[in-house]
């Protein structure tokens, strides 16, 4: 039988435990997807300025589209959950309002990012 850590099963702390776990999972995934992003832009790409046509050539392949959607999702989750954690550590009082604002801002950035990718490849 699996023995889950108490923090994952304790009542009322499940959401915090899941965001804690997702923060670690997103960190590990970001090491990979951000590494590929930096490699593609700065090591593989040798021209001084990245052009629209080069970006289009890169985004014409499905794996790159998936890479950028994953990068956006995990990057924004990791970033905004990190901001929330810092605010809680500094004594944040209005937790629900802050979570709401961060979710709206994160979703908006993810939405505009995915929309721009779709517009770009259409």
């Amino acid at each position, binding site marked *: 039988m699996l023995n889950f850590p108490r923090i994952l099963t304790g009542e009322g702390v499940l959401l915090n435990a899941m965001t804690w776990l997702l923060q*670690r999972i997103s960190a590990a995934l970001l090491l990979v997807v951000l590494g590929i992003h930096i490699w593609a832009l700065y090591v593989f790409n040798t021209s001084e300025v990245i052009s629209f046509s080069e970006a289009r050539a890169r985004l014409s392949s499905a794996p790159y589209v998936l890479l950028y959607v994953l990068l956006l999702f995990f990057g924004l989750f990791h970033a905004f959950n990190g901001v929330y954690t810092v605010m809680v550590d500094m004594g944040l009082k209005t937790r629900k309002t802050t979570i709401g604002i961060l979710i709206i801002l994160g979703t908006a950035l993810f939405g*505009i990012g995915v929309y721009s990718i779709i517009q770009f490849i259409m």
Partner: protein
Amino acid sequence: MPSREMVASQRYKTNSQVWNAVGMWAWMLHRATGIGLVLYLILHATLISTSLISGAQSFNATLTMLMTNPVLHYMELLLVGAVIYHGLNGVRLLLFDIGIGFSKQKEIFWAAMVLGAIMWISVVVVKLS
């Protein structure tokens, strides 16, 4: 046998002892680089997305402005440093979370810093050459 928390509280009896600890500075710098990277991510995602939507001319003009600006060129080196630090210290924290290396946290921190310095200097040399 005293618990880990008791040992830690005895080790750090005064405020100055906490501030002299490597782990505290590693944590502070992780937070500082994290906040900096969040601000960069918001700017980066907004700028690239809106210029992509606006079309080829707008995208090329934005990228040329960003990638040929000498001030931004040097600021990019700071960005690379922040990414390397946050990433390597993040790996150190992930190792602790799965139970690896906690008793050697200082040594792992300095090893990560040496690796990070080598990576950052390599990027500086390539970017400025």
